[in-house]
């Protein structure tokens, strides 16, 4: 089995991708949206052509709102982010913007700073709790598998994998935000959570095959090296991994090209995550069991 024999190569590839993702996160940082920091975000569209960003900044400067960031969205819309506005300030901003031109407000969101920081805590708790429960469940589902890796070894492998599966799309999104001005919003968290689900399912299919082979070998007294079992399991499930990834990618492409503006970034993060996740479950998750097995049997 190619992947097993050259597993160090695939570990290296993973390492490089992971380093690139971590590098992107550290260099560019993750620009947190108002869901996390609190603040107000409004989107307005101009029927008669949108003014230059500097003009808008100037119009708003008299309102003493502190730092105002203005960004172009789509064909004729602007998105304006400020600190948390009061309803009165919001009215004032709208009337300042519509001076001399006609403006339609597409959306407006305002989050108090306290609520924002709570969302961040909640999101982290949710991700952590989901990962923990997944590990426990896998340890439970694989409890009858004891050699050469005990059930919780599979659980640990999955955590290691999930951590990387989350870091890679996050790194991509950090770079994406840096170049497009997008921000980390609650849909990004939803995307990460969906990815957790997808990647776990993906790797469970392979582990399930390993479990089946181990049981069969035990039953029929077949001697087979762990490497061989894993290699067999990977190649047998490869078509399904690729086909499933392909169908999800097709659906996501439809969402990116035809879907709503609001879900585009979500779909993009999912696309990168599914691609990375599929690679990692085929090329890394099961091969990772081999060094773990060696460690357990030292």
């Amino acid at each position, binding site marked *: 089995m190619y992947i097993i024999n050259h597993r160090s190569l695939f570990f290296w590839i993973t390492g490089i991708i992971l380093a690139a993702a971590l590098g992107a996160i550290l260099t560019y940082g993750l620009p947190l949206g108002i869901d996390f920091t609190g603040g107000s975000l409004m989107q307005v569209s101009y029927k008669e052509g949108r003014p230059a960003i500097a003009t808008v900044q100037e119009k708003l400067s008299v309102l003493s709102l502190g730092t105002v960031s203005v960004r172009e969205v789509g064909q004729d819309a602007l998105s304006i982010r400020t600190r*948390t506005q009061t*309803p*009165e300030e*919001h*009215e004032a901003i709208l009337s300042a913007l519509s001076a001399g031109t006609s403006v*339609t407000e*597409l*959306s*407006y*969101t*305002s*989050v*108090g700073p*306290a*609520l924002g920081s709570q*969302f961040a*805590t*909640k*999101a982290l708790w*949710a991700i952590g*709790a*989901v990962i923990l*429960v*997944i590990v426990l*469940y*896998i340890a439970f*589902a694989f409890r009858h598998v004891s050699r050469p890796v005990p059930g919780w070894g599979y659980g640990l492998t999955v955590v290691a994998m999930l951590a990387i599966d989350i870091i890679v799309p996050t790194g991509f999104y950090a770079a994406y935000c840096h170049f497009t001005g997008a921000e980390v919003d*609650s*849909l990004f*968290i*939803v995307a990460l*959570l*969906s990815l957790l*689900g*997808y990647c*776990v*399912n993906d790797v*469970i*299919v392979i582990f*399930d095959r390993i479990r*089946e082979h181990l049981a069969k070998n035990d039953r029929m007294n077949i001697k087979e090296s762990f490497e061989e079992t894993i290699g067999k399991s990977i190649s*047998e*499930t490869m*078509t*399904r991994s690729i*086909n*499933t990834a*392909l*169908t*999800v990618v*097709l*659906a996501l492409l*439809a*969402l990116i090209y*035809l*879907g*709503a*503006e*609001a*879900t585009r970034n979500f779909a993009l993060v999912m696309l990168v995550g599914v691609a990375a996740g599929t690679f990692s479950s085929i090329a890394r998750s099961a091969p990772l069991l081999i060094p773990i097995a060696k460690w357990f049997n030292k």
Partner: protein
Amino acid sequence: MTRYRVFAAIALVAGFLLTYFVWATEANPLSSYRFKLGLDLAGGTELVYKADMSQTAAADRADALSALQGVIERRVNLFGVAEPLVQTEEASALYGTTEDRLIVDLPGVTNIKAAVDALGQTPTLDFRLATTTTVGTSTTVGYAPTGLTGRFLSGATLGFGSGATAGIASPEVILNFDSDGAKLFEKITSEHVGERLAIFLDGQPISEPTIQEAIPGGQATITGRFTATEARDLVRNLNFGALPVPITLESSSAVGPTLGATAISAGVTAGLIGFAIVALFMIAWYRLPGLVASLALVEYLAFMLAVIKAIPVTLTASGIAGLIISVGMAVDANVLIFERTKEELRDGKTPREAVHIGFARAWTAIRDGHLTMIISGVILFWLGTSIVQGFALVFVLGVLASFVSAVSLSRVFLLAIVPEHKEGVWKFLMGSGNRNA
């Protein structure tokens, strides 16, 4: 085989009826089973208020919160919004302090300021006992909450009493308590004769009469400091209910109708085309089983949409994302089964045997995959904020439905048509990729 054909026929009819239900209820604008769209899709305003419970005894908090909800609901109805929604939320105890929130959804309203102003007219009313502490020469006045608040108010009337200035009637506001409030008021007044009972309106003491004697009958009068107009407005506002505790606006959001409408049409287009491409891929690669799976997926979708309508689940952008991911799961379950079936066929099994074994072998992987996902969905729902919950609810429903559709529907359909032996065209139909079975 006859048995499977009967089941398949029943499943087909049921699927057709579900599809008809989804279509007919959507085509009829008066149907109560139309999709409930979240504010991000339908357009509207959401206001989140924080209730300040610092002056409320822990035991009274739940009551105060539900009273709050009732009063705000009455206010919102006054504002003239179709299908408003007022919810309360207690922030999780994970963070040490509990926070009570009030979430007000106003579909179709985009003017946040008007909405905030309308709700902001609701007065906050409570009664506190004034306690004077003297330390040395300085005296400080403290106020102790009595538990008597706006939630015990049944109404207010305008009266004119003899004012301080002889001959000029000064406007008064007469508060009428409900029966519980009347008892509480009597108790407080009987236990604290001689003390001053301060009436707090919107957090400010507006009147501090000294209790002369126990007051039965459940009426209190606020005198002084009003002009006639002020008193009239206050009476009107009090009659729509008074809040037991003060609330402050914590976050708000508004989505214009155009953005929501674009989001829906784009979401539907993407969903349909995405589904068509996935079905085409499945048919091209897995041939007959692929076609069967596509049919099962159509039924799966019809079922999901019917459930979403029947519960009803409010659809938001994140909920639609959850639906799409769960469709992906359903596809995956089918792919797993077909790959397994294909392996058995290659081992020389007959098509029917292969299908039976394929389903049985794929079962453990499907079970573990779906169960981890259901568990994580439940946790997300439990821990998440509203946007994450919208995702989690649809996702969990979708994964449950996928569980059923993959292991039952595809199986019944396949077993209803697959022959005992692979001959002629069946060799091609049961094959996959570029290989025949």
